[in-house]
């Protein structure tokens, strides 16, 4: 929301309409609601399916959500500064493709992975230049790169790879980390989430992100390198998504350009469901982590209960809707009361 000169950030409702919220609302945090939902999901799952509360469910959830969760972290940071990145899933596909292609053509697996990450950095830099450098709207730009990256992947690797990747690595798609029931990608996510949480909530950089999200100009006048930070975030997003692409490829022990098609919406949904404001400035890592777990657990529960995939979509959508309505509930009531107050007989002035 950066390119409108005289306009205050959309989230801000100072003046204009009564914007104050009752004190009790500050106590009710979305994260709390999420925890309640999570407990609900677990109770529901275990009630409906005997096999739900099991180590394998836990492992499978991690296995399925791992890459999505990992991509959600940089997206969280990007949304915090009031931008968005819709190219994440395409980048996952592209990096996997590059890795697969190189490996197919005889380069060492490690070299292939390195190259994939490099592509991620370059792709992220492209987004960064267009958005932070030229100041183009991120939603439009990343829709463009969404197509571009997927297309590049298509060119590089029209047909899926056939050469089998080293089983020592592909076992992350089959086995949990030794001695645990935690999928590798999930483990990596947890580490990244902790780092991300510390950075966002306790460091100058994190504070800067919040400031940029709430009021870019004020941030700039406080000596915060707004554009440099945004650029950095997109490069980071590129690299992390490329990394997710590497994991995804290893997990599936093969690469194809279609990998992760359509996941961008899932990732965005996960972030928003985590209570992150699309306008920037407001959001927590805890929220995103919870939302990842809920979405994953819900999928497992519903699948095990043979619930139609379509129904699962409906559930996901409804949860997403709740995530924005519930925190607003207070305001809505407040406004309704205000409305009612006005409703008393309205006398029109008559010119004497």
């Amino acid at each position: 929301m950066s390119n409108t000169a005289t306009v205050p950030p959309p989230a801000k409702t100072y003046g204009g309409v009564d914007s104050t919220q009752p004190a009790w609302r500050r106590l009710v945090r979305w994260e709390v609601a999420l925890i309640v939902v999570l407990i609900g999901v677990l109770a529901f799952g275990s009630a409906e399916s005997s096999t739900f509360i099991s180590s394998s469910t836990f492992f499978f959830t991690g296995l399925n959500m791992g890459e999505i969760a990992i991509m959600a972290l940089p997206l969280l940071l990007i949304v915090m500064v009031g931008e968005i990145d819709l190219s994440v899933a395409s980048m996952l596909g592209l990096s996997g493709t590059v890795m697969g292609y190189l490996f197919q053509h005889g380069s060492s697996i490690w070299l292939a992975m390195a190259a994939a990450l490099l592509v991620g950095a370059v792709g992220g830099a492209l987004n960064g230049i267009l958005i932070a450098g030229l100041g183009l709207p991120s939603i439009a730009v990343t829709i463009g790169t969404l197509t571009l990256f997927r297309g590049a992947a298509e060119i590089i690797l029209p047909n899926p790879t056939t050469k089998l990747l080293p089983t020592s690595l592909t076992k992350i798609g089959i086995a949990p980390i030794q001695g645990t029931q935690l999928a590798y990608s999930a483990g990596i996510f947890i580490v990244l989430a902790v780092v991300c949480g510390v950075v966002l909530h306790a460091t100058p950089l994190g504070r800067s992100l919040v400031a940029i999200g709430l009021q870019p100009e004020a941030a700039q006048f406080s000596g915060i390198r707004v554009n440099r930070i945004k650029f950095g975030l997109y490069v980071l997003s590129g690299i992390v998504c490329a990394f997710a692409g590497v994991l995804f490829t290893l997990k599936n022990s093969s690469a194809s350009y279609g990998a992760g098609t359509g996941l961008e919406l899932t990732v965005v949904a996960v972030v928003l469901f985590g209570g992150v404001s699309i306008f920037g400035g407001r959001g927590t890592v805890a929220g995103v982590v919870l939302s990842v777990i809920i979405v994953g657990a819900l999928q497992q529960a519903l699948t095990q209960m043979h619930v139609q995939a379509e129904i699962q979509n409906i559930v996901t959508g409804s949860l997403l809707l709740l995530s924005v309505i519930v925190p607003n509930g207070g305001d809505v009531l407040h406004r309704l009361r205000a409305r009612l107050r006005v409703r008393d007989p309205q006398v029109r002035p008559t010119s004497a």
Partner: protein
Amino acid sequence: MNEGELIRPLLVLDGATKSFGAVKALVNGSVILYPGEAHALLGENGAGKSTLVKILAGVHQPDGGELRVDGDRVVFSGPAASRGAGVSIIYQEPTLFPDLTVAENIFMGRQPLGRGRAIDRRAMNAAAAKVFARLGVLLDPDRQARGLSVADQQIVEIAKALSLDAKVLVMDEPTAALTNVEVARLFEVMRTLRDQGAAVLFISHRLEEVFKSCQRVTVMRDGAFVRTAPIEDLTIDDIIRSMVGRDLESLFPKTATAPGDVVLEVDNLTREKVFYDISFSVCRGEIVALAGLVGAGRSEVARAIFGIDRRTSGSVRINGDLLSNGSPQAAMAAGLALVPEDRRQQGLVMELGIDQNVALASMRRLSRFGIIRRSRERTLATTWGKRLQLKFARLSNPVSTLSGGNQQKVVLGKWLARGPSLLIIDEPTRGIDVGTKAEVHRILDGLVAEGMAILMISSELPEVLGMADRVLVLHEGRMTAQLSRAEADEDSIMRAAAGLGSEEAA
């Protein structure tokens, strides 16, 4: 206006109350407007003036009290209702649509219609041009509002209000960004409106304007009505006393200090299309004022020095060493601080707490192992809150809940906390009441006494004359005069600001 009492009042607001959650913005908002009068509403920052205005505008519904127009009790369900009742408002902050043309901004929702209820643009532009003519301004009605200077934005606001031909015209600090000439014109227009029997409610922190233009004065303090009186029964001191609630010592405390060695050296600074060849220097222990009309490019000079904008050519030295171009970080590292013109957009993150705003420019210093230490943050805020006599409920409250003056203090604290060697302060007291004004001036004076160098941009001549050791005058982006405290007076500055060239130049 004593015969005014005999006439039926146009508008009466009686004992209106309004609170925003914890904040009691209005305890007893009362004002009576008679046809044909210009009525001043005065009060410190946060006295509740704008809140009162927004109640008249139907933006806020009062929690209590009653509102009468032409003797009938009315409830404004929204701005439309208020407008329908013949009340038109100029808000404190410009409320334009940057993407629409100036004319559309003026006539939004009331555009003249042609065949088939379609908007008749030609008629609309003509009508807009008429209003501008009335104001004696030349603005292209068909021009996009985006890119208008602060002043022009205010002009459009005024035109909007006038075009309504309202019975009651409310103006919340319309002159804050205007040149004297424009202000004079505005007053003429006010007079004609009064002659047509309209009432004008005029809010300003510039008391001299009030004395020039108004017949009656209503003073508010802490959201409550204090007194209403005819202007001729009042002196400036009476007004200030009832605003501040105490006697006020001098508005411009100024202790003479001997300037030390040069801190800032600006050499042929140029930014294409905005300003050209600006050269000057600022020493320790002196206040240098940058005067000129709004739109002269003073803020832009400040922005270029601080590195927000890149300079096209020229150099800036701090304590002798060159400052790299377009990098606020470098400027801050070199000991520069900039208190910007626009508090709400540039100075503060309105939704962050007071403490976090104060800390915003010093986060690195407050953190250990890259982690911000909240305790230190709070201490910092408390310290500066005390030193600047900040009025606030809780440090964690968002600054949006503070009044203009206190917000300005937070910005000051944020920069002083860095202990800068040069403070650039743009419009230090724009929209700030006399009480706080005096405080701010005392703070600035104290700072230079401690040996800080200050570059002050101000549109208020008294402030410039009262506080500056030297005065630089800009006209359309060029420096037209450098005046010593001795040479500087109303006339010499205005001549230079008008680009008429001062004696030595001629």
